[in-house]
């Protein structure tokens, strides 16, 4: 009866800026003694509501620091909400940053295995999909080179190839296509389209309105951690571009 794969109800994420600062032990002790609970609160997300149905593709737009990445981290489960509820009923393959999860000292081959395992694949699944990953990322010749010697484009290709081959219920792509060249972007979009056709749910962050227009059915526009607008791609993009 409920095919909402992601359910976010009135969720807020709070960071404490005073805590985020690197504190030495002396500072901490002094603060405890003085009972100084100076809390500099900062709400990265305020009262967000979002329901995503299985198989939908959502775009997230907004200026830098508007909370897009924080929202995706909430869905991934990296952050938990300060208030409200987040319920995700499915596996998540996050691509939150170029080369996140890569160990640059290791070779491409070793990183494919490591990254696949981090994404929750079994060892057998990694072995079975290995050739596919290598084929898509076009890194056959560089498999035994440490990733630290890869270009950013190569890292993007490898990261994207591994994350999409995890075949998770939800694929999260945060501004990951901006590095690659045009041909690679095209290739990635085709792959995401294939996954969408196969029933995967996509959460997609991009500063390129065209890419969002091509990929997404629905769009959420965030501003300063609040929902500015939510709805069909055309409507929201039209409003966004008018600002």
């Amino acid at each position, binding site marked *: 009866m409920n095919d909402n794969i992601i359910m976010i109800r009135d969720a807020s994420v709070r*960071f404490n800026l005073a805590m985020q600062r690197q504190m030495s032990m002396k500072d*901490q002790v002094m603060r405890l003694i003085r009972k100084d609970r100076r809390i500099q609160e900062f709400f990265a997300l305020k009262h967000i509501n979002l329901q995503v149905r299985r198989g939908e593709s959502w775009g997230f737009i907004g200026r830098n620091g508007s909370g897009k990445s924080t929202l995706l981290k909430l869905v991934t489960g*990296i952050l938990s909400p300060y208030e409200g509820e987040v319920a995700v009923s499915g596996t998540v393959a*996050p691509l939150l940053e170029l080369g996140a*999860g890569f160990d640059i000292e290791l070779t491409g081959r070793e990183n494919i*295995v490591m990254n696949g*395992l981090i994404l929750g694949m079994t060892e057998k699944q990694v072995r079975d999909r290995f050739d596919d990953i290598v084929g898509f990322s076009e890194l056959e010749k560089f498999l035994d080179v440490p990733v630290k010697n890869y270009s950013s484009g190569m890292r993007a290709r490898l990261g994207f190839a591994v994350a999409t081959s995890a075949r998770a219920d939800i694929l999260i792509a945060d501004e990951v296509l901006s590095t690659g060249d045009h041909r690679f972007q095209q290739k990635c979009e085709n792959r995401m389209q294939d996954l969408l056709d196969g029933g995967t749910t996509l959460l997609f962050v991009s500063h390129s309105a065209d890419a969002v227009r091509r990929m997404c059915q629905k769009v959420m526009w965030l501003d300063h951690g609040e929902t500015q607008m939510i709805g069909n791609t055309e409507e929201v993009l039209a409003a966004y571009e008018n600002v």
Partner: protein
Amino acid sequence: MTFADKCRLTWKNGIRYLPLLKNLVARELKKKYRQSVLGYVWCVLNPLLVMIIMNLVFSRIFHNSIENFPVYLFAGRMMFSFITDCSNLMLHSIVINGQLMRKTRIPYYVFPLSAMGCSAVNFLFQLIAFIIVLIFTGTWPSIHTIAFPLVCLEMFGFSFGLGLLLAVSEIYARDTNYLFAVFTTAWMYLTPLFYPISVLPELMQKLITWLNPAYYYVNMARSIFLDHTWPALEMLLRGGIAAALFAGLGLVVYSRVKKQMILYV
């Protein structure tokens, strides 16, 4: 959720991330020896060479009071260096993987556990070196060796708890690693590794045999390999209590802070 459900879930998760854990351990070992000619041979060679040097230096000083000095020294050093290496690796394990924690979804416990795994593998290499020392000194192991795994188990539990506490402390105050480095030096000199405990004043001897957990494990290893006796019961008890105490405390503290530590790493 009932307790049984919780246990089952934990077990399932544990099994699921076992290959990742294995890979993380292999990664550290690979990175350490990738560019060297001798590679893993260093794991055995390094403790042997250090051992030979220490033996040359200290056997002159204490050659009257300690019988079979190489075994005395190595047995102690092997145990002590596991405790400090393991807790030191675990101390850094969470903070050093902050990037991974912030960008991928990964259960945090794999980091301290993989540090523990690395140290355990290193300990195995140390054991190989130790066997070489035993052969060269003609010290044949007795039946009492079967008690050694139990001693190791206690030591693992103690180091695990200590490392977990340090790792949590390091998240909140990055001074922990500097303090611990200083502490380790003091700890080394306060553990009779290359001197006999009898050279110390009586009060110090009492304090060390009661309050220095490293000494429990060092002492038991020596009983087994040097004196060919069973480990003293009071040492076995103290060692077990220290292990349970530290491991328990570490787990409690860790599980209390694990939800919020992402904000600090």
